[in-house]
């Protein structure tokens, strides 16, 4: 009898726990985009990979944003993946950097020395960074290639 009682109790507990799970999933679900944001964070953190250095395609000399109304346009690429960057000086003296990448970008960051900023990804490969301090910067991105593999790229330093 003891055996059966225990089994019954365990089953009854399991049913109640399953209902509790369903309840919490309904009442307090994780944010809809949480998993995708975690995938991006993991892609950036996975330091085992090596960055492929992108070449500066346009202009041939690194641009410097001087005045408040200036916008510099830079293009980087490795023959398959291309990144277009616009660097704009803002009124508060910081820089807005936005652009476009022609691949499925998982994550994108601007690095200045040890400091890093994560870019906001928008539709169709667009991305943007607000309020980046002026200074020597690198762009880092993780993309999913057509082969399904992850590829990591880093731009040469540019003056924002």
């Amino acid at each position, binding site marked *: 009898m003891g055996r059966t009682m225990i089994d019954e109790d365990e089953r*009854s*507990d*399991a*049913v*109640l*726990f*399953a*209902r*509790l*799970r*369903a*309840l*919490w*999933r*309904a*009442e*307090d*679900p*994780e*944010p809809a985009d*949480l*998993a995708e*944001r*975690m*995938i991006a*964070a*993991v892609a950036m*953190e*996975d*330091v085992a990979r090596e960055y492929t250095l992108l070449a500066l395609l346009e202009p041939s000399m690194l641009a410097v944003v001087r005045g408040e109304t200036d916008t510099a346009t830079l293009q980087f690429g490795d023959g398959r993946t291309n990144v277009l960057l616009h660097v704009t000086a803002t009124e508060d003296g910081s820089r807005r950097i936005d652009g476009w990448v022609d691949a499925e970008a998982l994550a994108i960051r601007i690095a200045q020395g040890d400091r890093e900023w994560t870019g906001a990804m928008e539709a169709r490969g667009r991305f943007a960074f607000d309020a980046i301090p002026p200074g020597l910067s690198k762009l880092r991105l993780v993309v999913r290639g057509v082969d*399904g*593999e*992850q590829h990591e790229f880093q731009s040469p330093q540019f003056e924002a």
Partner: protein
Amino acid sequence: MAQGVGAGSELAEPARWERAGSLFARWREGDGRAMDDLVRLMTPTLWHIVRAHGLDAALAQDVVQTTWLTLVRRHESIRDPQAVSGWLTTCARREAWRASSAHRRVEATEAEALEVRLPLHESAEQTATTQDASHRLWLAVERLDERCRRLLRIVAFEERPEYARIAADLAMPVGSIGPTRQRCLGKLRALLEDDGWGEP
């Protein structure tokens, strides 16, 4: 099972920890997409375990992210890939505990004292419909004390709860977790019965 909320089908699913283990093994062998799938599989579970600690949504997301980044940095310390699910939930509990103790101080004894009658949560009143069985279950859960609510949520989402670790993380004696779990389930059932709603 008239009041069921999808329990039956869930019990038939292959174990999540096994799927997590094989995805983790594939990622270690160089399959980058397997990590994406592992993140998709385990993130909801981590969310519920972290939220059980009472963290607000923003902080909970930070803790979930810290858990994933910690996995990437320290994955070599996991000898058996099949252990990855338990490793993740343990890491999430510890990070949640750390974050919650940094942000607020609620003594467990005070929480026990609140047990008598908690005011109903506003969100529960807004979102739940009146005669629904899950609404009644929610009301009963809301009336549980903080410690019971936390423990039941953690145990509900851990497939293979390791009581020794949970005990340490909740600052409870190891031997008390099993009985506390049963006491909490008993309270929940009693609240449901008070409400005129029997167990299936």
